[in-house]
C-alpha cells in the first residue's frame, strides 16, 4: 500500500541535475519513486549509472502509489515511463490493466524471486517489517518473536503496530499464533484477525506512516513496535536505545512498472532492465537499508561482507523471514482490510 515518503525537493534536485545533460526529447524518460532518502539512494544506485550507460536523460518525480498511476492511466495523462509501487499494488494494478507488458527478452529476470516476476511488473527491492524494542526498558531480554510481542504478561509495556498496512499486521498476527514462517502464506485471514483481536486492547498506537512508527519508538511513546527495517536502522544509527533482528521479519517487495500509455516504452524497458541487473542492484544496499530484489547482486562482490549481514534480502536473512505474497493480497486485500479496520476501529 501507499508509503508516503515524498520529499519533493529531491525530485526537483534530480530534475535539475538531469536537465544539465543535453539529450533529445525522445531519449528522456521520467521515473517516479517514493522520494526521500530512498529515492536519493536509487538515484545513485540505479538512475545515474543507467542514464550514463544508455546515454539518456532520466527525470524524476515522486509518487503516492497506485492511486497516482490509476489517475494518470484512466485520465489519459501518463507522465511517467517507470514508476515504483508496493508489490501488492502492482498485483492489483495488473488486474486492473494499468501497466504495459514487460519484455523479458530485454529484461533478464534470473536471480529475481519468481513470485516477483510477472507479465507487467517486476520486483525492484525489499523492505522488511521487523520487531523493534527499546533496550532501556528491556535490556537485551526484550521480545524476540511476535509470540513474545503478543505475550502481555511476560513482556508488559506499550505497543504499536501498523494500522494502515493491514497486510503486514495480519502477517505478523499469523506469526504470533506460532505458525512457522513457511506456512504463513496463504494467510488464514480469520485466524489472523482473531490473533489481532487478542492484542488490540493492548495496542497504544496504530501507526499509519513510517515516520510515525519511528517517532513513537524514538520518543519512548511505545516500548515495542512493528517497524520497517529502514526506519529501524535509522533509529539505531541515530543512537536510540533500540534492538531488532530479521527473525520473523515480513519481507515486502517493491516493484516497478511501465504505466500503460507511456510514450517512451522501449527506452523505459531498457532502463528497467538496467535497474534490475545484478550490477546496479548491488549498488542499492551501499546507500540504503532496502535490500536488492535480485539475489545475484550478492555474488557481484560489490557489497562488503560485513554489510551483507545487515541487508534484509541477503540469502542468510531471507531464510529467517516470511515473504509477502502479492498475488494472495491482490485477491483478498479489500475484504481483509475492511475486516481489519472493523476490528481495530471498534
Amino acid at each position, binding site marked *: 500500500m501507499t508509503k508516503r515518503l515524498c520529499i519533493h525537493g529531491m525530485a526537483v534536485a534530480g530534475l535539475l541535475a538531469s536537465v544539465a545533460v543535453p539529450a533529445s526529447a525522445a531519449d528522456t524518460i521520467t521515473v517516479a519513486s517514493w522520494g526521500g532518502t530512498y529515492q536519493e539512494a536509487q538515484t545513485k544506485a540505479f538512475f545515474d549509472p543507467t542514464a550514463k550507460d544508455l546515454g539518456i536523460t532520466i527525470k524524476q518525480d515522486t509518487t503516492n502509489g*497506485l492511486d497516482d498511476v490509476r489517475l494518470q492511466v484512466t485520465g489519459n495523462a501518463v507522465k511517467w515511463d517507470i514508476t515504483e509501487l508496493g508489490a501488492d499494488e502492482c498485483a492489483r494494478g495488473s488486474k486492473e490493466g494499468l501497466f504495459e507488458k514487460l519484455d523479458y527478452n530485454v529484461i533478464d529476470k534470473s536471480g529475481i524471486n519468481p513470485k516477483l516476476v510477472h507479465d507487467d511488473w517486476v520486483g525492484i527491492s525489499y523492505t522488511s517489517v521487523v520487531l523493534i524494542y527499546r533496550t532501556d526498558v528491556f535490556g537485551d531480554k526484550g521480545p524476540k518473536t511476535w509470540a513474545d510481542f503478543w505475550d502481555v504478561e511476560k513482556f508488559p509495556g506499550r505497543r504499536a503496530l501498523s494500522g494502515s498496512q493491514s497486510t503486514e499486521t495480519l502477517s505478523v498476527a499469523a506469526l504470533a499464533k506460532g505458525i512457522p514462517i513457511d506456512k504463513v502464506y496463504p494467510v488464514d485471514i480469520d485466524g489472523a484477525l482473531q490473533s489481532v483481536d487478542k492484542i488490540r486492547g493492548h495496542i497504544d498506537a496504530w501507526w499509519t506512516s513510517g515516520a510515525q512508527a519511528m517517532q513513537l519508538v524514538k520518543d519512548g511513546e511505545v516500548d515495542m513496535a512493528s517497524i520497517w527495517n529502514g526506519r529501524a536502522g535509522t533509529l539505531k544509527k541515530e543512537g536510540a536505545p533500540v534492538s531488532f533482528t530479521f527473525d520473523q521479519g515480513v519481507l515486502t517487495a517493491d516493484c516497478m512498472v511501465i504505466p500503460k500509455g507511456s510514450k517512451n516504452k522501449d527506452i523505459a524497458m531498457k532502463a528497467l532492465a538496467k535497474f534490475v541487473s545484478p550490477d546496479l542492484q548491488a549498488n542499492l544496499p551501499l546507500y540504503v537499508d532496502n535490500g536488492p530484489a535480485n539475489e545475484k547482486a550478492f555474488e557481484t562482490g560489490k557489497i562488503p561482507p560485513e554489510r551483507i549481514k545487515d541487508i534484509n534480502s541477503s540469502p542468510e536473512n531471507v531464510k529467517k523471514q516470511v515473504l509477502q505474497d502479492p498475488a494472495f493480497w491482490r485477491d483478498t486485500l479489500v475484504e481483509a482490510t475492511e475486516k481489519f*479496520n472493523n476490528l481495530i476501529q471498534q
Partner: protein
Amino acid sequence: MSVASASLDHDGRSGGALNADALRADARRESHGTLALLSPGLLLVFAVIIVPIGWLFWLSLFDETGQLSASNYARFFEQASYIKTFVTTFKVAFVVTGACVLFGYPLAYMLSQLPRRAAGVCLIFVILPFWTSVLVRTYAWLVILQRKGLVNTWLMDLGVISQPLPLANNFAGVVIGMTHIMLPFLVLPLYASMKSIDTDCLRAAMNLGASPSATFRQIFLPLSLPGLASGVVIVFVLCLGFFVTPALMGGGKVIMWAMRMEQTTSLYSNWGAGAALGVVLLAVTLALLGLFHRLLGARATGVWSRR
C-alpha cells in the same frame, strides 16, 4: 372645465402609466445590470462549486466495473467501521466546539473589554498561531503531550503524578490539538460582534439599577449570541473535515471521516468509493446547518443575512 379636467385627468393617468412603465423598464434594466455584474461571480461559483459537487455525486453512483450501483453507499451499513468513524467524527466536532466556546468566550470577552492598544497586543497572540502551519502546531502538541513530553515530565518531577497521563495518541490528544487550532475561528467573529455591541445599552442597564452580572446576563450575553453562533458554525463545520491533527494525535485510534476517505480511496480501485463518503458528509453537514438555523431562530439568522 370638464373637458380640461378630463384631459388633465387623462394626461395625468397616462403620465402615471408612462411613469410606471418607465420605472418598470428601469427596474428591469437594473436587475439585468445586477445580473450581468454578478454573472462572473455566479459563473465562478457554478464552475468551482456546483460542477465538482455534482461530479462527486455522479461518481459515487458507480461501482468498480463502472455499473450504476448503490454499493458505495451500502458499504456504510455492511462494514461496522464506517458508522463508528462517522460517530467519532461528530463526537470530536461537538467536543472541540464545546471546548472552543468554553475557552473562546471568556477570551473574546476579555479582549473586547481591554483598552484598544492592549487588545491589539493580545489579538496578535490569537492570530500568530493562526498563521502557523497546522502540521507544525500538531507536532508541537505531540512533543508537549506525549508520555515523555513536557507536561508529563514536569508533573512527574513535581510529584503531582506517578504515572504519565495519557494525553497523546488518544481522544484527549485529538481534542486538545484541534481546540488550539480552532480557537481563533471562534474568537475572531465573536470579538468582532462583541466590539459592535453599543456600550450605551450596558450603561443604560446599569443606570436603571442592574448589577454588573445582571447587565452581562441580560444585555451583553444576548447581544453577543449571533457572533457566537457564527463562530460555532465555522468551528463545527471545519472540525468535520479535519485530517492532519487526528491522524497524528489520535495514534490510529481516533479515525475521523476525512481519514476514512483517504483509506477508502486507496483501498478501492474506483473513485466512487471515496466520493460516496464525501457526499454523505456534505449532506449530513447541510442538514445539521439547516437544523442549526432553525434552532437558533430568526435573530442569529437575521444577523447572518445582514452581514
